[in-house]
């Protein structure tokens, strides 16, 4: 399937996170190998988004550590995560609504800039050439995700599905090693989902990007992912290949309820 190497890119060790006394995540540990596509699944409120936020430094875990590309860190700020090659998309689209598609994608490339603002202001030195380079790379991404007809349109005016693709483009523009996707297919119809699934598979294959995604559609997960981690009430209840997880009784209980509670429901 994909180019999974044996080396581990991301490892979470005993991560716990709570908000004002409410425990969102309890002692979660798992590992993601380089080049694999890993899904985080689980009922709503299981702590999946919070886990992504911990991985990329938006939330700081109270205990445990995150090890990425060999380096272990307990606390990390979001821009440090970005500098180390982690990019992500958000559940409620976090695009810059006042800018065009192209500008949004270009902001994704801000870490690749070498020229200073002075050079850019005076249009001297490295600035003009760099502008061209960045634009060229942004265009490859834009064409890859087929959003080029809208490149100068204000993002706020696009449909939900297109906005999701722009957000993905912005994340890709940073040439990330690890891509965190928070429900990339939420709100899409079957056709759009197939398209997005194909995009993610292509990203993994062509760019070699490791992907961790949160997804509710089990069909998509089974077809796309190499590795599945199941969360419920902030705890990990399953971890393995899609087939292994599918057969896991705890996972079935979490999703469908146990026999007793199903009987009560009747």
């Amino acid at each position, binding site marked *: 399937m994909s180019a999974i190497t044996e080396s581990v890119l991301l490892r979470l060790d005993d991560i716990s996170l709570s*908000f004002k006394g409410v425990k969102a995540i309890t002692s979660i540990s798992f590992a993601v190998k380089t080049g694999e596509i890993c899904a985080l699944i689980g009922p709503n409120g299981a702590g999946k*988004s919070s886990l992504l*936020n911990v991985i990329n430094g*938006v939330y700081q875990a109270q205990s445990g550590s995150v090890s990425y590309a060999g380096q272990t860190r307990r606390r990390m700020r979001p821009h440090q995560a970005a500098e180390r090659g982690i990019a992500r998309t*958000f*559940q*409620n689209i*976090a695009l810059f609504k006042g800018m065009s598609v192209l500008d949004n994608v270009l902001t994704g490339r801000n870490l690749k800039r070498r020229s200073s603002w002075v050079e850019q202001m005076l249009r001297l030195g490295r600035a003009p050439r760099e502008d061209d380079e960045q634009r060229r790379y942004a265009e490859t991404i834009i064409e890859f995700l087929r959003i080029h007809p809208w490149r100068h349109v204000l993002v706020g005016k696009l449909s939900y599905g297109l906005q999701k693709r722009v957000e993905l483009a912005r994340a890709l523009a940073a040439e990330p090693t690890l891509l965190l996707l928070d429900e990339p297919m939420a709100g899409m119809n079957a056709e759009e989902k197939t398209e997005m699934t194909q995009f993610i598979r292509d990203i993994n294959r062509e760019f070699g990007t490791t992907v961790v995604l949160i997804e509710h559609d089990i069909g998509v997960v089974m077809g796309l992912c190499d590795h599945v981690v199941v969360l419920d009430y902030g705890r990990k209840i399953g971890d393995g290949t899609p087939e292994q997880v599918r057969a896991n009784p705890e996972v079935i209980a979490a999703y469908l309820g146990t026999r007793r509670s199903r009987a009560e429901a009747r």
Partner: protein
Amino acid sequence: MEFFFEVLIGGLLAGVMYSLVAIGFVLIYKASGVFNFAQGAMVLFAALTFVSLLERGFPFFWAFVVTLASLVVLALLIEKAVLRPLVNRPPIILFMATLGLSYMIEGLAQFLWGAQVHGLELGIADEPLEIRGMLLSQFDLFAAGTAATLVIALSLLFNKTRVGLSLRAVADDPLASLAVGIRLPRIWALVWAVAGFVGLVAGLLWGARLGVQFSLSLVVLKALPVLIIGGFSSIGGAIVGGLIIGAAEKVAEIYLGPVIGSGIENWVPYVLALLFLLVRPAGLFGERAIERV
């Protein structure tokens, strides 16, 4: 030592007046989520209307009633012409609209009643009272008493009446309130009218103290540090914040003034609020917004 207490209490009492203005802000913020910059202009309008009516021979009671009525009309107009068209816009747009509104109301007030300073007699002699060896202003005590009564009345309104319940519901979630049948425009108009009433009381008290003049609308700016310390959505916070600012201002003026220079009370409240914010970015009583991404 007594002198210090005298200064302190004088400051606290002045702070009560600040709290009054701040309460007007809090009411509107709680109900419409708008930082009503026009509150100061409304205070000015109220005071100016009242004083001008008095000067034209209206008895106290009727002047009060007519002014209150005009404030209510003003509130209704504001709700219809400004708030409703801007209902879904970002807060900064609403804030700027209230800026424009404050200009309008100031201009209107002075257009109607002129720009001279008016004296306002509320019938309270400004003779100092002597309590335990300290000289306290009778007027300030009266103002404090009035403010306290007002606060109690407002708390009763909010917590014990059905209307109060609707007000709190709207403050919490306007969309949900609509869903349960609360008439939003009415509630907004009511809140602005109540805020106008509070503004009227504040305007009368301040006007009696400073004279009714244009600079009254600048009092609104002092309310900002008060709200920052006390939080934007808490009446209790407005009171505490007002007391702190009033006391700090007075103490700084008397004790630091001779050392650094006169006029520092102009900026002390803001610097104080700024330092405060650095420590507690959400104010004393404000809610700390947890951003969900």
